[in-house]
Structures are given as C-alpha cells and as structure tokens.
C-alpha cells in the first residue's frame, strides 16, 4: 500500500462541509469560525509551545539552535539561524485507530 493510497486530499473546504452537516449555520459563518480556530491553534503553539488535542495528538514547538550548514551545491559554509520548529506527536488513541483498520 502506498502512503497516499487513493490520492485524495482533505482541504479546508471539505472540513467546512463536514461541520456544516453537524450544525445549523451557514458555510460562510463556519468558514470564519474555522479560520479563527486555526489562528487560536497557531497562537497557542507559539505562546505555550504546546497544543494538546485529546484523542488526536499534540503540536509541540521547540527551539533549534544555530548551526553551521553547507550549501551542497556550492559547498560554501553558511550559518543556519536559530529558529522554532513544530512537530506533531500522535496520541495513543489515534495511533491505535490508525492501526486497527488494517
């Protein structure tokens, strides 16, 4: 099985449709709420370095120190600046849901 099986992609518009099936609200309102939700998520990842969504997983932001890198094409040495990166760690529950399906 390839990693993206049938090649379908869920987009923001699909997510809005899914919420629309569950709540008495128009799509434009839902779209606006989803954008706000994403802003709140981003803000939380930045501010708390941590966003925990039970049954799904958590987003963790951590600092990468500056390090020396090399441009492989020109082999010139460059300094990579310190920066924040974000990783997703899945919850145990979601992990078993993903693997029970097989």
């Amino acid at each position, binding site marked *: 099985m390839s990693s993206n099986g049938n090649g379908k992609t869920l987009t923001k518009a699909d997510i809005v449709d899914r919420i629309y099936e569950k709540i008495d609200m128009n799509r434009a309102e839902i779209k606006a709420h989803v954008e706000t939700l994403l802003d709140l998520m981003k803000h939380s990842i930045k501010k708390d370095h941590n966003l925990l969504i039970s049954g799904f997983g958590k987003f963790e932001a951590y600092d990468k120190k500056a390090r020396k890198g090399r441009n492989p094409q020109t082999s010139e040495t460059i300094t990579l600046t310190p920066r924040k990166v974000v990783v997703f760690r899945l919850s145990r529950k979601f992990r078993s849901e993903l693997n029970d*399906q097989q």
Partner: protein
Amino acid sequence: MNKSELIKKLAEKKELHVDEAAVIVNAFVDSIKDSLVSGDRVEIRGFGSFKVKDYQGYTGRNPKTGSLVDVPAKRLPFFRPGKELKDYLNK
C-alpha cells in the same frame, strides 16, 4: 492549551455557545482523523499538511537481551507545518 480550552476560547471570541464551539472543534478534528485513517492526505492552507506513512513489519532484536522481537507493520501520520505557521512562529 488543550481541546476544552480551545473550545472555550473559540466560543468567547466568536460569541458562540460553548456547545456550538465544541461541535465545530470536534468535527474539525474528526474530519482530519477520518481522512488520515482512510489513507488520504490533509492540507490546511496556512497551517500545514498531514499524511500517513506505512511502515512494513520486521524482525528486530532487543538490543539489551539480543532476543528476536517481531515489530509489526504500522501506519504513522506526519505533519508538515505550512509556510505561514513557520513564519508566524519565527516572527
């Protein structure tokens, strides 16, 4: 922050009932999970994308005891932060 705090924040900010905010947040998370479980990709502009990778099982060894262990096949999701999220974190 956790999910219930996220629901509360969304309710406050958009003047929604907490129950409505909960329906939105839960449907949002469930739609992402369902897609990944069916092996689809998820792409949320401005935030990031998810995809599931399949790993084949193999026979490994417990490095401490040297005994053989069966590592079963597994599927794991990967998140790739979008440019907007990366820029926002570093700004």
